[in-house]
């Protein structure tokens, strides 16, 4: 089909993400596009605004360590059981990046507002949190539908320039199968452009099969696809392969210093140029 999104090499896919872009990334339990981030680092981007949906992890820390990031919005930034992401902590303390602390459902609500094409969504909770003091873009209004006073928080739409994630498979028309990982659907609906890496491209039509179609992002939301086998290493991909905990722990230890990070990335990421 002519409307299918282009199949690109990893480097071409990375090149389609411009300097200064706002870039939505999935959490560690979803589809982390590690190979694409490696390709992105090879092109030395600058000034990216990361959005963790709803948290940031290894992808974010690699990009921060590579000097590619100006700011990050997330409900948390973490390497899970491997502790704090060392380059994030260092950059934040040195003032090299700006952190927009959020809470998980506020990130989802912002993306859902973008998905609906509305300027904001109201969200319960959050009142009394110091997050509100530091988020001048979040507003508190009195619920206009209520007869009694009812303060409620408004979260502005988050419309990322690019959503970037990894998935199990795309079909020949560029429909991308994500299974139950529907935060990836939300990201694709909300973003202006969606770049996806997949384990494989299958000669099939996922939309022709109801079982598949219910977990499939239609090609109309997909801007570019690249094949990256084991493209989520070392974070792992649920249902396909496990996290490589030794590699993540090795990274967490090595990246405590910038020079350690530079060496680790050169050896494990930049050196591993895909075929």
């Amino acid at each position: 089909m002519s409307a299918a999104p282009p199949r690109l090499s990893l480097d071409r896919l990375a090149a389609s993400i411009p300097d200064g872009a706002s870039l939505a990334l999935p959490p560690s339990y979803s589809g982390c596009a590690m190979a694409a981030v490696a390709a992105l680092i090879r092109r030395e981007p600058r000034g990216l605004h990361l959005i963790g949906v709803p948290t940031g992890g290894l992808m974010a820390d690699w990009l921060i360590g590579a000097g590619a990031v100006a700011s990050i919005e997330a409900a948390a930034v973490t390497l899970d059981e491997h502790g704090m992401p060392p380059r994030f902590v260092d950059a934040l303390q040195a003032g090299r990046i700006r952190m927009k602390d959020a809470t998980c459902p506020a990130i989802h609500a912002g993306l859902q507002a973008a998905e609906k094409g509305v300027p904001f969504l109201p969200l319960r909770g959050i009142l009394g949190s110091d997050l509100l003091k530091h988020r001048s873009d979040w507003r508190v209004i009195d619920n206009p539908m209520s007869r009694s006073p009812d303060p409620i928080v408004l979260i502005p739409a988050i419309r990322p320039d690019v959503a970037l994630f990894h998935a199990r498979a795309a079909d020949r028309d560029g429909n991308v199968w994500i299974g139950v990982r529907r935060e990836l659907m939300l990201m694709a609906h909300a973003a202006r452009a969606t770049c996806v890496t997949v384990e494989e491209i299958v000669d099939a039509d996922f939309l022709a099969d109801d079982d598949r179609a219910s977990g499939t992002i239609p090609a109309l939301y997909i801007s570019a696809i690249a094949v990256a086998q084991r493209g989520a290493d070392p974070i792992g991909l649920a249902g396909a392969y496990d996290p490589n905990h030794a590699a993540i722990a090795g990274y967490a230890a090595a990246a405590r210093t910038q020079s350690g990070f530079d060496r680790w990335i050169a050896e494990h990421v930049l050196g591993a140029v895909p075929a």
Partner: protein
Amino acid sequence: MSAPAASEATARAEVMIGAIHRMLDGLGHVAVGAASPIPGSAALLARALSGGRTRVSLLGSRRHNAFTDGGQELFDCAAQGRIDAFFLSGGEIDGRGNINLVGLGGYPASRVRFPGSFGSAYLYHLVPRIILFREEHTPRTLVERVDFISAAGSSPAGEYRPGGPQALVTGLCVFAFDKARGCFRLETTHPGISVSDVRAATGFNYDGPERVPETPPLSREALKLLRSEVAAQVAETYPAFAARTWGC
């Protein structure tokens, strides 16, 4: 790690699991967030003891997590009142039930940075029974005033707040949260811990009688279930914790 230290850690984990699982008795739906092996174990134990009537959603698990609408579903569920209990912790927890998951010593360039608030700022207000847990019970974790309020322990009258703290379970004791007064009350101390041990280790003020009961141990039946069936379920999501605690 020496064997006695390991068994002491196991005993402490089991007494905390025991205290938490009793708070979940009879509930319909218990959800467990990230990095919560002790609450996760307690929730799975409560489910096993309920004969499956208590539903458990363990985030981070493939097997014990029925959500199919992405990371957003837990939060939508909570706002609709479909979740009866959830667990929160904090780098700091203060005497008013405020929790800090962001950092110590200034913001945004904190001296010590924690991961971030996750869903706390929202779920604390919406889930009726929030059980706070923090194994490390010291004056640096349980403080007079948190450096950053990720989520507030209580809200002014007139704010929509069906949820809030019910209890705080630590490695030393169980506190109940008094909603009306907005502060904690010492309920039980774990075996071998005195009320003065708790007072000395706590950085905030709380209501504490001179004598409180000991945190009850798990029943033989519950302990057997925990160390076998439940431990195996816990190992799926928290392999390091299960190996450390039960050698599985």
